[in-house]
């Protein structure tokens, strides 16, 4: 399985990872090797086989729509790298 540097750069952008040049090259070769290994799945005929995403039967769980106490605001914000006026503060969004 050939993976180009451009494939890696595209995935890195989707994954929000600012990879260095060396990382991009390393991951291109390692991902190619791993994806070559998984190509063996192609040999199996899976036509009509339902995919399994959870091993237990998915069931919608209902509960009463009742208000319950949640964590206080200051505790939620206690780990924030930056906060202001009871909110998480982030760098400028509109550039």
């Amino acid at each position, binding site marked *: 399985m050939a993976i180009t540097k451009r494939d890696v750069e595209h995935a890195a952008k989707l994954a929000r990872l600012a990879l260095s040049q060396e990382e991009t090259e390393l991951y291109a070769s390692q*991902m190619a090797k791993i994806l070559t*290994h998984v190509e063996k799945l192609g040999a*199996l005929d899976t036509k009509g086989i339902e995919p399994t995403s959870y*091993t237990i039967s998915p069931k919608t769980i209902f509960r009463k729509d009742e208000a319950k106490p949640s964590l206080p605001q200051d*505790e939620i914000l206690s780990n924030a*790298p930056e906060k202001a006026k009871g909110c998480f503060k*982030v*760098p400028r969004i509109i550039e």
Partner: protein
Amino acid sequence: MELYNLTIHELHDKLKKKEASSLELTEAFLKRIDAVDGKIKAFITVIKEDAIKQAKEADKRISSGKDITPLTGVPISVKDIFCTKGILTTCASKILNNFVPPYDATVIKKLKDASTVILGKNNMDEFAMGSSTENSAFFTTKNPWDVERVPGGSSGGSAASVAAGECTASIGTDTGGSIRQPASCCGIVGLKPTYGRISRYGIIAFASSLDQAGPLTKDVTDSAIMLNIMAGRDPQDSTSIDAPVPDYTKALTKDVKGLKIGIPKEYFIQGLDKDIEKAVKDAIEVLKKQGASVVDISLPHTDYAIAVYYLVATAEASSNLARFDGVKYGHRAKDAGGLMDMYCKTRDEGFGPEVKRRIMLGTYSLSAGYYDAYYKKASQVRTLIKRDFEEAFKKCDVILTPTAPTPAFKIGEKTADPLTMYLSDIFTISCNLAGIPGISIPCGFTKDNLPIGLQILGKPLDEETVLKTAFAYEQATDWHKRRAGV
């Protein structure tokens, strides 16, 4: 015997008979940590003062004589993936190197409600991605049986801390073998229950359809005691199963007459260490002598399990780890030129190489044009793997296999090639893909005196038969009584 070598049930007896207080036990373990952890490096955080406070509370409960559980006053450790209120929880990652959770994971709450004493948080592979603890952002844990070797992973700190007598027991998580493989490498008992048996609330997520918590203990009885406390439906986790929790210690009867043991031919392959093969075959004979019978079975899709796992687990990880963005908690990159730049730099600085590799692989295989060929295909083959087990369990009650193809490997031996490292999970991964319970128990030693693990797999929610089989074998042997000479 030294206190630090004793099991939960042995310490419980001492506490009940007032031969020791929880404070004495806790101080003995803290002293033991001081003495050996410089060498073993099983802990990221030790909470000395907090542990002593917990021990004093437990002693009050014991002297009141009311509501004493088998874990009351017993000192344990916890993998650093469980959120612990007010205590640093890093997941062995730089991106969480300052994260102090404002709440407890459900499992932690249950242990605290029983007045279990928590000594500290164990090292692991970053975000539970690895089989050796070499992917920890901080340091590598050493195997107490041979400090040149890895303790296994990802719950390697947990396993090593139990094997080195730094705690009575520990709790870990298992996504592809992360409880059973380190238990095998360190000569202890590691149980991965059925998917959904234990709440995942407050456990930092790696692959949500595979992650399951479980105990790492010195013997099978302790494993049952821990599962009694940990198991059960939790309204905070919609995937936790709403099934009654039996008293698992009642399953420890040694009675395996008529039990049908399945031996899958696909697990006795080339590359399996000769000493391990012999130990597992000897174990089968031990159970046969007690009245169990053996049936040959086949799990034909075993060979595809690693490929399925590394597509499913990385896809789920790439989505789960999107939450680490430098906004709400954890590391944030300095000098970023805007929000997008902050995200990208934070994540590049905060995640280690293996975590980035898996995020990349998962993102790639889920991206436009590749979804059908990779994620969907893998999920379909997962169905085939699950069906293999359903078919096999029509013929047998439990399945016996080696836990790992080799004993603990040397530090640095497999770090250069990710795929070689992934192959060390070859016998443990299918169990997570199928959602069934599995345990690893000690079944011997290699010529180099390295522990060997026997894996016992069971039907969904049939932890009782798994524990019963494990107990019958354990009681007929004395591997579980051996301690690493640290």
